[in-house]
């Protein structure tokens, strides 16, 4: 049986851990609030962007635009978005598992003699895992979630756009955790390039825009050339925000569970501690009483 001192030491240890998990939970909660706010404030931009794009694509032939036209797929680039840090439950491991499965599927679907899918990792966890696996990593971005900025999205899109136009890969997909609710993340795989046609359709009521004759400066074609990369930047930005919010949600839940477990452990151990203490007292009392009895009988 554990001694009193051992039990007490364990209780202190668990209490310290609990303080840390509680603090992490609160930090995650405040970061989550900010992350959710960031998602909400993208909506006006998203709406307008969608409107403009769906309006302008009616003016061009998608088959002629390099970022809209699909071509025969030899090689795929998969963007894997994980977190930089752990302690967020199954957030990273689930995503990495799903990404690995998807890679296998991609490899199986590929033509003979091609080199296999490429990876672009966002977040340290995915980068570490796939480096150890010896996957072909095209580029990696680590540490961007600490101070997430739109320029990060732009940098990533620049890279994939360049590679795509240079025909290093013919399709770009992204796998990430979508923020469903604080306790729920959903793993999503989306196609980024070529831009899927349904993404360009926009709202069903093709609003007033379509009926108006605009002046285009310089021309509708040039506007769409500038619009499409910015649409991609924005998609990437949205994905990074989603993943960030999902990560904070996952961490908050995981840390809440951890604090809860710690509380339970402390309760059990306190019970054990009190039992042991009571047993010790009883034992001592028995010893005193029987000692006194023996003395009296002897006297």
């Amino acid at each position, binding site marked *: 049986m554990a001694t009193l001192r051992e039990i007490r030491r364990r209780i202190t240890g668990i209490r310290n851990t609990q303080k840390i998990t509680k603090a992490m939970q609160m930090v995650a909660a405040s970061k989550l609030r900010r992350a959710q706010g960031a998602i909400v*404030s993208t909506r006006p931009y998203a709406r307008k962007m969608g409107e403009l794009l769906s309006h302008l694509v009616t003016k061009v032939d998608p088959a002629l635009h390099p970022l809209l036209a699909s071509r025969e797929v030899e090689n795929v680039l998969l963007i894997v978005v994980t977190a930089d840090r752990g302690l967020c439950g199954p957030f990273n491991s689930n995503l990495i598992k799903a990404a690995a499965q998807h890679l296998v599927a991609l490899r199986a679907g590929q033509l003979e003699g091609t080199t296999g899918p490429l990876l672009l990792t966002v977040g340290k966890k995915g980068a570490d895992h796939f480096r150890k696996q010896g996957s072909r990593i095209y580029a990696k971005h680590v540490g961007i979630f600490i101070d997430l900025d*739109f320029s990060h999205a732009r940098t990533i899109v620049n890279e994939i756009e360049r590679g795509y136009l240079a025909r290093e890969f013919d399709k770009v997909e992204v796998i990430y955790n979508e923020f469903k609710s604080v306790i729920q993340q959903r793993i999503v795989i989306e196609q980024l390039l070529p831009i899927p046609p349904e993404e360009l359709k926009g709202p069903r009521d093709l609003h007033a*825009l379509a009926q108006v004759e605009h*002046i*285009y*400066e*310089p021309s509708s074609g040039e506007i769409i050339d*500038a619009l499409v990369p910015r649409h991609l930047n924005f998609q990437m930005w949205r994905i990074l925000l989603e993943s960030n919010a999902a990560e904070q949600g996952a961490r908050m839940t995981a840390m809440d569970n951890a604090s809860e477990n710690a509380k339970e452990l402390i309760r059990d151990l306190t019970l054990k501690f009190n039992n042991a203490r009571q047993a010790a007292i009883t034992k001592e009392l028995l010893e005193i009483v029987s000692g006194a009895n023996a003395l009296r009988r002897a006297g």
Partner: protein
Amino acid sequence: MAEKLFRLEIVTPKKVVFSGDVTSFTAPGVVGGFQVLKSHAPLLSNIAIGEVKIIDAADAESRYATSGGFVEVHDNKVVMLAETAERSDQIDVTRAEAARDRARGRLAEKAAGTDVERARLALHRAINRLKVAGRG
């Protein structure tokens, strides 16, 4: 005054930077700067890196640095979509200076793997920010 007003919205992925009634909106179009007043014809234009100037209902002028985007004018409503738009007095000058020096360094090195086009654009953006902030 009221008869000269029209609605303006400046929207970035991060937030709605401006939303309100103005009397004049001047933007750096890629084929040259242009000004929008009330009853402007419907227009869609690309915006370059540069300075956006607006005059609001109280006749006060404010200026924004933008890294480019789009402007749509339709039915006395102007929507500007930009990836960044910062009002002149809200520009982080230290950060812009750092970005300028970094971009200059990258261009001067000419090391292999440097994306010259990107560095040039970054330099352009930083200089524009400083320019707009400097006159504020």
